[in-house]
């Protein structure tokens, strides 16, 4: 990290944030490469945050065509011009992001991410996945974990007034200052697959109900072969049936996953911009922490619900069988 100093231009532009996390952290940020998949409102917020922070590069993936509905929560897409040009979501967002900070290299990668080999992911320091199926999340997480290099892996999804972030930093070591002394800290993260396999019964009693709600909907979409967010209130009977099964298997009371919450999640197929801002902000902060090595990273889920206003960290891991 040493030897390469920030340029005068960088020092001037990043002055206020260098005062928050220091010049070392800024140097690490400027050498980092981030991959994001799924360009909806929350990811747009996240991208804005890390581009402003001054990461080295951001690679965007989303081959969906720009549609009217895509505009709703995504401020990176300008109306008219992009629609007429028939750009993909990633391409449309790329143009706007470049404007935010000319020092960051923003580019688009096309293709089916599921078919990409591990060597593709090796180029990145952090991978953020959004709006995709359960199977795809697991697969990409596995590919990242296979590499000897640590790649910080995140999934993020917002449904209406609710948002969820999952974090996998594999084996993460960092140091922090407590009073005068520096403490070495180490965190072991489970993979996404292992985390969600944790028996519900074994979780802390007051774990966020949103965790269960998100798992039910996720599984429902998986079983039905739907895309992420492709639900409506008509799915409620099927979702309630699945909830019953899951609660029985996990021997927890169905009240852990209230009807009202599931209804909200089912209807919330479009994002609510203030929630995108909150979740995109927290996620940006977490990625900056992981790259810079400054600050306690969250482990391993974060939930926000605009209904009660709580932004909550939950540590959800499978109990170790030694």
């Amino acid at each position, binding site marked *: 990290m040493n030897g390469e100093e920030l340029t005068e231009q960088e020092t001037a532009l990043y*002055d206020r944030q260098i005062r*928050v996390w220091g010049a070392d952290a800024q140097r690490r940020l400027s050498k980092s490469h981030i991959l994001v998949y799924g360009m909806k409102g929350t990811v747009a917020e996240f991208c804005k945050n890390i581009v402003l922070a001054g990461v080295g590069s951001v690679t965007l993936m989303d081959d969906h065509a720009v549609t009217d509905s895509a505009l709703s929560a995504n401020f990176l897409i300008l109306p008219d011009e992009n629609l007429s040009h028939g750009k993909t979501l990633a391409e449309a967002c790329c143009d706007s992001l470049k404007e935010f900070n000319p020092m960051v290299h923003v580019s688009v990668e096309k293709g089916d991410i599921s078919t990409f080999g591990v060597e593709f992911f090796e180029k990145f320091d952090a991978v953020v996945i959004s709006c995709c199926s359960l199977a795809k999340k697991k697969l990409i997480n596995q590919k990242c974990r296979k590499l000897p290099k640590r790649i910080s892996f995140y999934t993020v999804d917002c449904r209406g007034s609710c948002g969820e972030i999952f974090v996998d930093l594999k084996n993460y070591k960092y140091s922090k200052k407590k009073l005068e002394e520096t403490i070495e800290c180490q965190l072991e993260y489970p993979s996404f697959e292992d985390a969600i396999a944790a028996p519900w019964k074994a979780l802390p009693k007051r774990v966020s109900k949103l965790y269960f709600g998100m798992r039910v909907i996720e599984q429902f979409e998986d079983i039905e072969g739907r895309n992420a967010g492709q639900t409506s209130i008509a799915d409620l009977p099927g979702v309630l049936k699945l909830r019953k099964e899951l609660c029985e298997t996990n021997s927890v009371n169905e009240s852990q996953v209230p009807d009202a919450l599931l209804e909200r999640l089912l209807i919330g197929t479009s994002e609510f911009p203030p929630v995108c801002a909150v979740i995109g902000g927290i996620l940006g*902060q977490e990625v900056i922490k992981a790259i810079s090595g400054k600050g306690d990273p969250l482990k391993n889920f974060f939930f926000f619900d605009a209904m009660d206003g709580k932004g909550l960290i939950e540590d959800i891991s499978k109990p170790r069988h030694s």
Partner: protein
Amino acid sequence: MASEEQISAIKRAKVLMVGAGGIGCELLKTLALSGFQDIHIIDMDTIEVSNLNRQFLFRQSHVGQSKAKASTFTILRFRPKISITPYHANVKESRFNVDFFKEFDVVLNGLDNLDARRHVNRLCLAADVPLVESGTTGFLGQVTVHLKGKTECYECQPKPAPKTYPVCTITSTPSKFIHCIVWAKDLLFAKLFGDKNQENDLNVRSSDTGNSSEHSADVFEYRKDEDIEQYGRRIYDHVFGHNIEVALSNEETWKNRNKPRPIYSKDVLPVKMTEKNGDTEKDCATGDVSVMAFLSLKNPQDIWSLAENSRVFLEALRLFFSKRLKDIGNLTFDKDDQLAVEFVTAAANIRASSFGIPLHSLFEAKGIAGNIVHAVATTNAIIAGLIVIEAIKVLKKDNNNYRMTYCLEHPSRKLLLMPVEPYEPNKSCYVCSETPLSLEVNTHHSKLRDFVEKIVKGKLGMNFPVIMQGASILYEVGEDLEEDMVAIYAANLEKAFSELPSSVISGTVLTVEDLQQEFSCSINIKHREEFDEEKEPDGMVLCGWVEAPVDKDNNKPIGNGESTSNALPSEEKDVEIQEMSGGTETVTGKKRKLSEVDESKKQKKPEKLDVDDEDDELVISDDWESLAKKNRV
């Protein structure tokens, strides 16, 4: 997720944003995305390079332009159909009166200073318009909702006072780098380059010793045709050598302290500078004058050696006299003045070196001297999201669900975003309740001017005050006053309370009103003969008006202003020298404001919630909001 009711409430709403900076940019974007269609923005600032890392609606090409206008322009590109009305203006202008505020359904603050926040608070109370207030510093932030009569107003809780230092700590016994910065910036810099008529305590110590005050008067005088380096070395030797020797002669001071070391320029820099840097003249013929530029000190993060600091000190002084002679005599420290920052950094470091205090880089010194706020985009984005969530509740009149929310750096009981029920109005708040204040004052000695400056403007934050006793007006500020009245008021200012046309004595009730803020309060006058010069330097004491003590704990206060509030460790905040006699030196009973103070820290974060954060099996009490409430007091 939005219900029909919510969508139509948002569409109908007319909102006023005050501030288009760090929070403002994020807020405007989120409002536009959320479907707001009629947004008005007031901001008096123009765009600077250091804004661009987070105020993402601005580009390099916007630098120098109005924030209100540039943000409007950028947002209209992606939401061309909504209406945004920018005002490149100070919210305190008279056109933004109560009638103006009444037009809005909700006011959203993204401000950076206490003064403007208090002003908007009063206008919102007078217009009975809900206010959503916010602030961030670094990773910390908060959002609060203020509704007249339902929740506390912005001024119901005391605000921490600006950090003050005893004058003797600054002039004689510094123990922290901030003390050296204050000395360099507010004493030495002011003495050399500022208004010569200002009082200056630079030589408080040395004046103890008879003839040295005479000596020091000469020292700072630049003699015509004098070699500028020789002049610089004389200043150097006087402030870092002679003054330290004088201070050392007072044995009593150093009984329990480490003795400082006098430093003389010949010991640090034996060779004459101009011989080494003969070619410097042409290097800085144009553009911004900077020492670093040609002393090959490239990296502002580096800590200079004593010799380097000494060289910067002398060079900076030389450049001020050779390149900026016309500025000398009316300069005040400005963090954007590179040469001033270089000079202050060097002077503070040489002094620090003398007192055995660790030296700091120019980057750090600049932050401390300029009270520069720590700011990141992510916190602003989160806070803006939370503001919109509360604003929508306000529009839906969802009275029971308003929350004040803290954005924390470290989770407290698993919470990074911590909502708390809003507090009820403080019944003894002089702003939102009718509770009278009382003022203890020597009615025979204190003049109306002191009252206007120190109390009405200084403490009550009024801009256009009217002071009345019953029906008779003692003083008034306004644009359209008759000339004879102006003369009478000017004369009144110089009179003691008891000498005023309608004599103000113990038991008199004064009414103080700000016509623009439509805010008025009563003050009961109580005569008191004596005041403690140290503890009551104003010579009057206002009761019922609360100012919080400066925080002592390590919790960083949550700033209320993204762009100029600051999150430096608490001892490095905005600074005022509180004159106190710390020994034998004489001091005047005068408080001197030393920096553009943006002291708007609210210390509302429930502090004790971190304590038993260890075990997640421990359930979050459903009652934790009230727990937080108790802890807050």
